[in-house]
């Protein structure tokens, strides 16, 4: 895409796709929308998410991501992430039953000095966490919890699903493999790129008691 024409074409496609998504979104407001219309909406979202993830990773490889640091209220950010998550919305189509995605207020720990505000690129972090959420929702049995923990110089985001039990490392490994080859998840690579763009961030996926825990750490700017 160093070729300016390719860049232009890709962004044109992305914009057209986004407009299509809005059209389908509006169509889906109608009660009588046929199943195909709903499926088209889902596919369109998946396709756009994949394209945006790909473009983000491509930019990371070519020139590095340059995060636009803005002040974010962490509790509001998590609440909005969960509320607007397209993966969460589409969970039922994978499982046949609903997956409850919780913004877990009990676990949220704002740092007393920073007051629950953080400086980071909210769009990049949202993209990364949405991909983690997408992964969690796929493997969850019933429930996914999302929260943040804030320390003096670090913001930690966590996504916990009740999918893999204790010691089920086999499943974890499988998931990591799926993560790499999955057509929807450019997953961990994307999360790592986003964490890395915010200084010395890190990403980890581990099996814990009662499920699997995804952790993304961002070094707080300042």
């Amino acid at each position, binding site marked *: 895409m160093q070729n300016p024409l390719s860049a232009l074409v890709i962004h044109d496609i992305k914009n057209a796709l986004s407009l299509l*998504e809005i059209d389908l*979104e509006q169509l889906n*407001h109608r009660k009588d929308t046929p199943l195909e219309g709903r499926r088209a909406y889902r596919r369109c979202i998946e396709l756009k998410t994949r394209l945006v993830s790909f473009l983000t990773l491509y930019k990371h490889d070519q020139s590095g991501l340059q995060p636009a640091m*803005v002040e974010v209220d962490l509790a509001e950010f998590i609440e909005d992430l969960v509320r607007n998550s397209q993966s969460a*919305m589409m969970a*039922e*189509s994978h499982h046949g039953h609903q997956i409850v995605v919780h913004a877990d207020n009990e676990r949220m720990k704002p740092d007393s000095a920073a*007051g629950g505000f953080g400086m980071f690129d909210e769009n990049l972090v949202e993209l990364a966490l949405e991909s983690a959420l997408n992964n969690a929702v796929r493997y969850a049995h019933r429930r996914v919890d999302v929260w943040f923990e804030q320390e003096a110089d670090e913001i930690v985001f966590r996504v916990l699903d009740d999918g893999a039990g204790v010691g089920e490392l086999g499943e974890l490994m499988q998931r990591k493999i799926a993560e790499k080859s999955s057509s929807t998840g450019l997953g961990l690579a994307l999360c790592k790129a986003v964490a890395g763009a915010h200084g010395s961030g890190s990403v980890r996926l581990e099996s814990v008691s009662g499920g699997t825990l995804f952790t993304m750490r961002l070094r707080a700017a300042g």
Partner: protein
Amino acid sequence: MANLPVQGINALFSGGFIENEYVHFNKLSALVIDDISAMRHAVRSQLQSLGMNKVSVASNANDALELIKATAFDVIMCDYNLNSTSSGQHFLEYLRNENILNATSVFVMLTAEAEYSFVANAVEYIPDDYLLKPCSESKLRSRLERLIDRRAFLMPVLKALDAKQYDLAVTECNKLLDIAPDARRRMDVLRRKSDAQLALGDHLSVLETYAHAAAVRGDAPWVMMGLARTHYALGDFAQAAEMANMLVGKNKNYVAAYELLAKIRLEADDDEGAFELLNRSSVILPSARRFRSVAQAAFLLGKLEDAKSNAEAAIQLSNGSMVEKPDDYLSLAQTQVDMGDHKCAIETLEKNARKHGDVGLFGVAKGAILAQAYFDSGDHEKARKLMERSVSLLANRTDSVAMVALGKAALKTGDMVLGMKLLTQAVQVSGQDERIIARHVKKSMIDTGHADKVEDVIDGGRKRILLLVDEATKLMRSAHFTEANQKINEALGIHEENLEALMTAAQLHLLWLKHEGMDVRVVERAKAYLSTLDKLVPNNQKVMNFYRFFNDIVSN
């Protein structure tokens, strides 16, 4: 905040919109500004499906401006990339500068990814929110719900701000501070409170507000910037610079901090340093206003090439847009004359600036600069005619910029008496622009070979007045009102219509009443100063604010 289980796919696909218990979208009006019709209509249908019935659209800033002037929209959704010459950021800057945007209007900037990091770094004229476009309806909904919810909490304050009742706004802020449920709300209120106090020119109180905000969250950029500006206004340049440098250390794109540092450099007579800082901010966030400041700083430093290229950039960036200023052509032409390029100067004014005509004060300055150019070209007769026309066009109006141009032309074409008279007057009537006009006058005199008379022309009692006003300001800010008044009276004794002295006198008397309570004599004097100011500078924003402040105090 309650835990929010996500609605399952059926809930979201079930049709119709889910009514929010706080936000009634059907009562809100919105304006969508986007040059791409598909995008405009997409956003409009999203807003409509949120329940908004009154959604207007505009495809460009000029149409949007007319709509905003006619209607107080609750929500304005503006695309960042409006067209090749003006951006949503320029538009917002214009709306805020001209006080067109209601405090009660929520302004949301829509940006594409490529622009986002650039846009999000803007610090001076920030919208209420940024949204990466296009965004899903559910995201749009949650963002708007939050914004409208915050607006609802602030509503009494915002209404007072829109009515320009700043004292009332401060009172309303204090009421809200008692009931603000969390830090974010408290910070929202404190920010509006500082805005109102700044509009009142009440620096003593605004410092307390910033201290209060810093106790809630000390590292909030607006608090640091506000503190830096207030220290600057109070004459504490060292502390202002320290704060501004801290901001720049945190964010090297913090343009407002560079601009304040440039002002501090100017106070220290470091013109070169100021020029470099201004130049840096115009590179980070190019705008016609910034190119203008760089052009002026460069011109005064004699860096004519830089002055020329920045004046050209200002013209190019603002051409045909609402931020266009005919004076840009005057700066460019004067620079070209000084570079010895009278041909280009004539072309700039006669050809490129034709659409701005040649009447009014613009006509005075245009004729004066053209006279210089024709004089240089050897056509002294044409120069003489142009001078005559400009002098009669100026009549007995007093305008510093026109007088500087005409004074310089008079000196250059050999009319010493007229030149000295105009330049002396230019400084005397320059009011708040005194510092910068004095520099232009000084440069004009040196350029025309009259360096020896600079002191006489610029001073005319000015230095003494400035010194007294300065002393009075310091006394006023430490609440020594009687002593401050003595100094002001002395200053007004030298030149009774000196704007700076009159402004300070008015402000002094208002603060006096606010902090020491009612006193009939002080009220009468305040009234007298305000009416003199109203005659000298009609419709001046600052004077109007003083009036409102005065009415608030007297009615309480």
